[in-house]
Each structure stands twice: as structure tokens, then as C-alpha cells.
């Protein structure tokens, strides 16, 4: 098992290093204009400096806080809503026009409105992120719920369980792995939106604020280094979520995993 993890990490490292080497070579040979896109090595050096820069860490922490609460709220809202809409077809049909109307509205357009509605920068960022991150969880939950084996539901119904129990004990566990994929999608959407909201709307602190400041000084290297930390955060979050899924959905992977 630990050897397996080892080889996964190793391969990932090989892949990432490969890309970095290619980019560095492209920069050095002039394939990419380094006046606008700094060398990979430069960015890495800046990123390493940022890691121990207290001011940057404060920015990063503010963003991470908004991200965490946004994701938590998203799950708390979207999963129950998705279960309801997935189970109760009439409810889904009724709500569909509203959902499909709201879904394509860019959060960017809503930022000034969110500013009017929320007094606090944390709440404003959260609201924007929740708005965008809800959809992947909601849609995946609805599709996951629809994919539940009807016989599994009928079994519990035949034992006299009511709809609530069926949802809780059959539909939710069956759909959970696919919902989890939605949550992983939402996790990165929430990161994106928190940072974008900071870039667009400004504020007291947050990675987006740092990026704006770096931009004002034309420090593209710092901008990209900060962006790189955002991406690394994404990798870390995804790895955590995947590890959690592997534990919780052991039955799912065992049962469905490809041929041994």
C-alpha cells in the first residue's frame, strides 16, 4: 500500500518536473518571451520566498479561510438540495427553469451586487464562491441520485421504510462517490472564485489582494508565484479529498475497480 502511494507520488513528481523543465527550456531558448512570462526558475525562487513571507502568509490565510467556509456551506446547501431534486422529479422539473437561469450568471457580474448585500469581506467572498461552487455539487448529486439502482431502493421500501429513510440509507450512500466528485470540482471552483473576488473587489487581505499589489508594481514574477501557490493549494486539497474518498468509499472502489 505505502509502496503504491510512493509510486503515485513519484509519477506525479516526474510529470510535474517534466512540464517545468519543458517550460524552463522554452523560456531559455526564447520560445516564450521572458519579458512577459518569467522563467520557471525565477517563479520558483519567488514562490519559495513567499512561503516564508509573513505578509503573504496572512493574505493566504485569509483566502483559505474564505475558501473553507465557502466549501462547507456549499456542501451543506447543495447536497440536500440535490438529493431532494434528484428524488422528487416534480420538484426538479419545477425548479429547473430557475436553476438553469441562475447557473450561467457569472459570479464576476454578481460581485458588485454581493458587495451591496454583504457587509463583511469574508461573507462577500464566501457568497460569490458558494454561488459558483453550488452547481457542480448540485448537478452531480442529481445525476448520482438518478443513477441509484432501483432495486436497491425497492428493497428498503419493501421493508416498509419511508422515503426519508430510503434517501438517507440507500440513495445517499449509492450516490456518494459521484457527489464526492462534484465536491472536488466545487473545491477548486471555490478557490478560483475566492481569489477572483479578491482580485476584482479588493479588500483588506487575501491572495488576490497580493496579486493586485504585485500587478501595480509590474511584478509579474510575484503574480505568477502567488498564482502558483493557489494552484498548489488546489493540488493539496484534491489530494486530501481523494484520500478521504478512498477511505470512505472503499466498497465502491473494490467493487468497481477495473480487472485486477
Amino acid at each position, binding site marked *: 500500500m505505502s509502496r503504491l502511494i510512493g509510486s503515485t507520488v513519484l509519477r506525479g513528481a516526474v510529470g510535474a518536473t517534466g512540464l517545468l523543465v519543458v517550460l524552463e527550456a522554452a523560456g531559455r531558448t526564447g520560445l516564450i518571451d521572458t*519579458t512577459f512570462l518569467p522563467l520557471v526558475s525565477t517563479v520558483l525562487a519567488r514562490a519559495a520566498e513567499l512561503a516564508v513571507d509573513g505578509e503573504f502568509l496572512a493574505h493566504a490565510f485569509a483566502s483559505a479561510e474564505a475558501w473553507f467556509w465557502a466549501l462547507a456551506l456549499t456542501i451543506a446547501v447543495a447536497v440536500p438540495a440535490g438529493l431532494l431534486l434528484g428524488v422528487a422529479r416534480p420538484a426538479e422539473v419545477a425548479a429547473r427553469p430557475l436553476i438553469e437561469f441562475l447557473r450561467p450568471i457569472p459570479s464576476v457580474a454578481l460581485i458588485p451586487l454581493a458587495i451591496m448585500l454583504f457587509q463583511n469581506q469574508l461573507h462577500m467572498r464566501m457568497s460569490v464562491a458558494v454561488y459558483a461552487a453550488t452547481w457542480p455539487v448540485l448537478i452531480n448529486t442529481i445525476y448520482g441520485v438518478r443513477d441509484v439502482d432501483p432495486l436497491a431502493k425497492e428493497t428498503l421500501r419493501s421493508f416498509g421504510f419511508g422515503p426519508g429513510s430510503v434517501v438517507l440509507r440507500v440513495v445517499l450512500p449509492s450516490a456518494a462517490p459521484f457527489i464526492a466528485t462534484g465536491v472536488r470540482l466545487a473545491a477548486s471552483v471555490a478557490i478560483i472564485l475566492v481569489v477572483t473576488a479578491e482580485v476584482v*473587489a479588493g*479588500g483588506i487581505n487575501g491572495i488576490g489582494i497580493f496579486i493586485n*499589489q504585485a500587478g501595480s508594481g*509590474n511584478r509579474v514574477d510575484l503574480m505568477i508565484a502567488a498564482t502558483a501557490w493557489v494552484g498548489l493549494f488546489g493540488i493539496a486539497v484534491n489530494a486530501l479529498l481523494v484520500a478521504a474518498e478512498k477511505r470512505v468509499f472503499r466498497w465502491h472502489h473494490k467493487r468497481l475497480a477495473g480487472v485486477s
Partner: protein
Amino acid sequence: LTACGGADTNTGASTTDNGLEKTSLTVGIIAVPDSAPIQIAIDKGFFKAEGLTVQTSIEAGGATATPKLVAGQLDVMLGNYVSLFSAQEKGVGKFKVVADSYQAAPDNFVLMAKADDATINSAADLAGKKIAVNTLNAIGTLAVTATAKVAGVTIETGQFAPMPLPDMGGALKNGTVDAIWVAEPFISANSQQGAKKIADTMSGPMADFPIAGWVMSDDFVTKNPKTVAAFQRALAKAQQLAASDRKAIEEVLPKYTKIDQATAAVIALGVYSTTLSEARLQRVADTMKEYGYLQQGFDVKSVLHAPAAG
């Protein structure tokens, strides 16, 4: 209304509590030299001396800072006059300029084009060209339009392409736009990267044009007269310092922007104002009216809240 970011509104810290209605202020600034006086006032303790605790919030621009001011997330903001007047006219909110901050000096804001682009050498060549500005409907578009008009060219609004300042160099290079409107430190940077200056947009009709001032909501000013006065007093000292001592600015620039000390020492700066002049600002309103940025005429007196003494 509560200030954001967890800054609490206690008065205990202040020693010279002279009955201020609100002692803790959140000020929206922009990471450009225009905001320097706030940082100076904080660093030099001018606000503290007035019993004020000031926290800065770094804004991306007027389009989002203005609603924050209306909603009360910000108590004060650095507003560029063009956006501000336009917002006031459109009924976004009622504002008061409590202090002037910054006015243009030669070569503060220039138009640049690719050095090897022979088709564009001056403002007279701008007809039909795509021009990158940081914000639409603001000082940039107004300055370019006015400058071009003097050169005999009418600029259509559709020629302006909005984009963040750091992206402009790349956009110019790959031909997404034909010209860019930039300030320092981007002027120096782009010069090194093969761009040439084709016009100074702060000359002629735009010479010494007021750029930005410190703005509060009308409501706030009415409700907190003492706080406003205290803020004005502290800021006046800082404006004074900024206007007279370039070193003071060079010192604070790296604190709220990522302009480093070396760059700060060489870049061209505008002029920091020490008075709030109705006549100067009326010029902004009139120019805006001339270019269709304002529908009706606009009497700037209604938006001024001059300091009580001096």
C-alpha cells in the same frame, strides 16, 4: 454599519478622545502612488494623534469600491473624479469629497505603441486603433479622447479595450491592441520591452488635470462630523508632507504596492494637492460633460465637503 475585517470600534486606544463619533475607519485605497498620503498619515501617527485607527483596504477600482462605500464596508475611499461624478449623476449614491489627493503632472499617463510599428507615432494616428485602458469610463478614456481630439481624431468608445495594467505589454506585443495607456512603473517597463511613447495624455487640455480625491458617503459625513474633521486634519498633514517631500512617498510606496525602492526613486509622480478647490474640480465636471461622460451639467459644490479650517 460595521467596519469590515474584524477591526473593532473601541475607543480605548485613543488618548485624545475629543468626542469622535467613530474612531476606527476603513479606507479604500488603490495600489498606485495617488494613495500615498494615507500610508504616510498612518506611518507618521497623524491619525493616531487625532484618535483615529485607520485600516486600509486595497481596492481594485472605482466600480467595486464605490458600492462598498455605499454599503458601508468602507468609510473613506480614494476615488477618481471621473468615475465618482459619473456614479453620483447616475444615482449610485450620494458622495462627498473630503479632500483632494492627486493631480496629473507631465508624463504621468502616456500612450505607448510598439516601437517597430510605423503606422502609429502620435495621437493623430489613433483613428480606428484599439487602445488598452485599465478601466472604461474613467480618467484614462477621457484623457485619451481629449488628447486625440486636440490631434484631430475622434475616438469611438468601442476602441477601448479594458485590461489590467500588467497584461498590457503582452497584449501590445501580440497585437491584441495597438496602443496602451499606462502610468509608472509600466511606462519604464514597456519602454525596455520595445514600446515607444506616442503621446502624453496629461498635456494640453488635460494638463494638471485632477485625478483623485478622498471620498465619503454623504450619509457618513452628516452623521460623523467630528470624525470627518479629524480625518481631514490628519490627512492634510500627510498631503502637505507628500507635496513637499518626495522622500516621504518613496518610503511608503513599497509598503502598499510592490513598487520597489529603486523604482520608486525614479518614477515620475503627479502633484499631491493640499487644498480642495472647487474651481479645479469643476473643470473635471465640465470636461466630462463636453465628452458625454455626464448627461446634465454638474455643480461640484454639491459634492464637496471642505475641511472646516483651511
